[in-house]
């Protein structure tokens, strides 16, 4: 049995051109649809002389229904794994032919607005001299490997074929190839096609990114809406479509300032409405899950893939799809491939929900479909509405890396949260989602921004003033004694002049939080202050 695996890109480079959420969606949808078309062409492969010859897709989950369906977001990952009883050389020929065909028909679709996705049903000779085809082929980066399971596992010293193929493709992805003969930038975007078009020419994928509405119609998702950043940030108080009708017409970043000036007059407007969250999530324990599946029965990997597919897309009375989870919250899912996802969300969403509740809903759904031994970790960057999108996404991915580094062998499911101020300064905090520390912080965050409690304005100055006392308590005393000393500090030194109940409750909560964090050195104490700074800044303090 031979195995075939392929990876495609450049995903990050494609995202870096984006300035609007719909461009991000369209860019990731391109790669997902491309992968789906290629997989479908391999899935449907039939040898006219020998009907036993087959190509079976293992990852992602693929059956006739999945491959015929149109999804609201890109759900096909940037790589696939298949197995086949076809000989390696023949498999290579089939793959390269199908790849060229997919590139060719995709290039025709991009080049001519009158061509629909039906073009992918075609098979036959392609024109390799076609400029559109050459342009798209020049832009795309892809690598593949065809191999035998035992050979590859032995040479890579990996315990199963999935790990071995992944390791090889990870290496092959480092090889950016350059086609110096053919330029990928052949499309000019005109002002009549798109407001504020880029200067100069763009590559085919970038052209498609400016045609999100066309793509939406093509995938028969006319109800799909592309929310602008202010629409997302203001989700909890945007009640009527008319509120942002003007913004939908022309959602360039220059218009956001004027839009916000109007909304600031709303009685429910809060400083945090000027911030939005970028959520980057990835599964924990997936390697172990695959390992145990392989040791039990390698054929079960297809069931695992199917469960991932259901986690992403199943929409029923008991379970919402990821798209709907984001939509109902007031956010927007950009893509969900495998155990990765990228989405935009408000800090407080519709129906009085908050960002933490959104993360919990995603985590619960993940475990519901894939089991309790796996979890999701998150990088969440909170950004000012004018922040460049690509920087916000980059930051969220970097935070995900911090969250993954927080995980241990025995404990996973971390959140790395960061606020980037308008000036560029950032505040960060990392938590285990199962910890009491996270629960306390979460409640402090929600209650402060909902104005149930009120942290004193001078809180950080007060805490910083007694930094050495706090450090001394937690590094030199028992837990019980340190709690008594902590009480004494708060009773006598950390005060609020307002004497309001909200302030008193807030200080009690801060004290409780400090008793759990137990800052016994400068670094931990500074982290504590940073975490409190996130909350105070979002409520409007400067």
């Amino acid at each position, binding site marked *: 049995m031979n195995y075939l695996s392929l990876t495609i890109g450049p995903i*990050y480079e494609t995202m870096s051109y984006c300035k609007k959420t719909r461009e991000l969606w369209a860019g990731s949808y391109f790669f997902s649809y491309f992968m789906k078309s290629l997989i479908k062409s391999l899935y449907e492969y039939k040898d006219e002389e020998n009907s036993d010859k087959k190509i079976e897709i293992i990852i992602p989950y693929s059956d006739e229904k999945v491959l015929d369906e149109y999804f609201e977001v890109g759900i096909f990952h940037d790589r696939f794994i298949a197995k086949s009883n076809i000989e390696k050389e023949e498999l290579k020929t089939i793959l390269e032919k199908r790849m060229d065909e997919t590139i060719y028909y995709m290039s025709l679709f991009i080049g001519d607005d009158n061509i629909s996705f039906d073009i992918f049903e075609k098979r036959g000779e392609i024109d390799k001299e076609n400029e559109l085809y050459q342009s798209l082929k020049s832009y795309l980066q892809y690598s593949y490997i065809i*191999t035998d399971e035992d050979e590859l596992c032995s040479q890579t010293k990996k315990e199963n074929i999935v790990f071995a193929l992944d390791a090889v493709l*990870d*290496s092959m992805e*480092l090889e950016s190839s350059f086609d110096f003969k053919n330029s990928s930038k052949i499309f000019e975007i005109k002002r009549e096609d798109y407001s504020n078009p880029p200067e100069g020419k763009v590559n085919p994928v970038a052209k498609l990114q400016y045609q999100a509405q066309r793509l939406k119609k093509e995938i028969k998702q006319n109800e799909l809406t592309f929310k602008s950043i202010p629409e997302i940030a203001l989700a909890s108080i945007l009640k009527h479509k008319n509120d942002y009708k003007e913004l939908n017409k022309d959602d360039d970043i220059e218009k956001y300032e004027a839009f916000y000036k109007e909304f600031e007059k709303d009685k429910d407007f809060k400083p945090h409405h000027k911030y939005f969250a970028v959520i980057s999530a990835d599964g924990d324990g997936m390697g172990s899950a695959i390992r145990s599946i392989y040791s039990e029965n390698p054929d079960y990997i297809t069931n695992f893939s199917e469960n991932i597919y259901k986690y992403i897309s199943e929409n029923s009375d008991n379970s919402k799809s990821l798209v709907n989870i984001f939509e109902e919250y007031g956010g927007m899912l950009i893509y969900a491939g495998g155990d990765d996802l990228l989405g935009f969300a408000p800090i407080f969403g519709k129906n009085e929900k908050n960002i933490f509740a959104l993360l919990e809903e995603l985590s619960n759904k993940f475990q519901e479909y894939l089991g309790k031994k796996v979890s999701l970790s998150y990088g969440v960057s909170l950004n000012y509405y004018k922040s460049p999108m690509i920087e916000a996404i980059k930051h969220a991915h970097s935070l995900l890396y911090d969250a993954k580094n927080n995980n241990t062998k025995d404990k996973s499911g971390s959140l790395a949260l960061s606020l980037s101020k308008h*000036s560029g300064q950032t505040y960060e905090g990392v938590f285990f989602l199962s910890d009491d520390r996270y629960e306390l912080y979460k409640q402090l965050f929600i209650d402060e921004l909902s104005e149930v409690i009120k942290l004193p304005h001078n809180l950080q100055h007060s805490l910083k003033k007694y930094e050495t006392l706090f450090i001394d308590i937690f590094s030199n005393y028992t837990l019980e004694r340190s709690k008594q000393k902590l009480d004494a500090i708060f009773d006598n030194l950390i005060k609020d002049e307002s004497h309001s109940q909200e302030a008193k409750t807030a200080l009690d909560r801060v004290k409780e939080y400090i008793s759990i964090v137990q800052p016994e050195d400068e670094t931990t104490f500074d982290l504590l202050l940073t975490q409190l700074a996130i909350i105070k800044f979002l409520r409007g303090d400067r």
Partner: protein
Amino acid sequence: MAWKLIRLKPLKPFFFGKETNFKNTNYAKSEYFPQQTQITGALRLYWMEQNGLMKMHKHGRYCTSDKAEDAKKFVGDAGAKNFETDDNLGRFNFISPMFLCKIVDNCIKDALFEIPNDVIKEDCIYKTANPKKLSNTLSSKPVVILENYDVKKDFVKGLGGLDFWKQYSRFEKLTCPIEHNKIFTSYEQVGIGLKDGKQVDEGKFYTKKSYMLENGYEFGVLVDIDENDLKEEKKLQDGIITLGAETSTFSFKISDIPSSMQNHPLFESFQNQTEQKGTKLILLSDSMLDYSIDENAYFQIVPYKVPFRMMQRKDVNEQATKKSEEKLLVPKGSIYFFDEPSSLQKAKGAYVKMGFNQYLVLN
């Protein structure tokens, strides 16, 4: 001809720009190092100014026609429009990529360069990830796995000095690289945009991220210049130079290369401009390639491409507003592996003197 070392100490936060400009975004972040064309332009301008060859104009500084011949002798007349075909940079024979100098008691103790893209950390040890060819596999090119590379941990980024590069050249265990944020301190500013460069444009706020260097660090550039027949006062002198955007100013000091740095592997590489061949080539500067080198390389680590354009002006009395055609460069730090000793394509025209397509050769 003589090799000299130039030290550039930032006098205020500096900003080295790239393709992105404020027109398309309200956020701009400086690069750690300038492009070769920026360094070259700054040095040429500096030398001409020192010799009184420049005049001020509303669109900037320019050389008058009566001084043009003198200027040509100093810095050549190759321009952004014809760098590919005209290599005349006057007395500049070579300008290296910029690096960092570690300064102790006003002396250079080390020269730091950004490390290549194959350094990994495994069990607290820094080493290179090595490519291993796989047999009985098929693809459109040789199938290679980079041993010990973990995509989730990625490669180590940072800067390496003399010890690092010596160890790297000998395929030994590596000294811990220095992280960028230990040397570069970011400095954010919020500014307000101007209409037509003059009036405040209400609401047009932008964020600019510049850098400063920590105490004890300066920038460095190696130059090969021909000053043999020049009087002392005409030679490159210490002074103040502008390099980069937003009037980033630096103190400029020129001296011989200190003996302690003479055997720095990268200094040796810059000073040896003959064609070098090896089975592992590490790019020390962004490189312009006309062909896809991976036709010969069995593996390469080229994680991204660098878009590159320059501002051009029709003549000296006009502001530079036209951008040259975009090129894609292979970024420094990229690595190529060959079965047989191979070399890298030389850059064309003046680009080779500007320090493009520089590489370290290992076998």
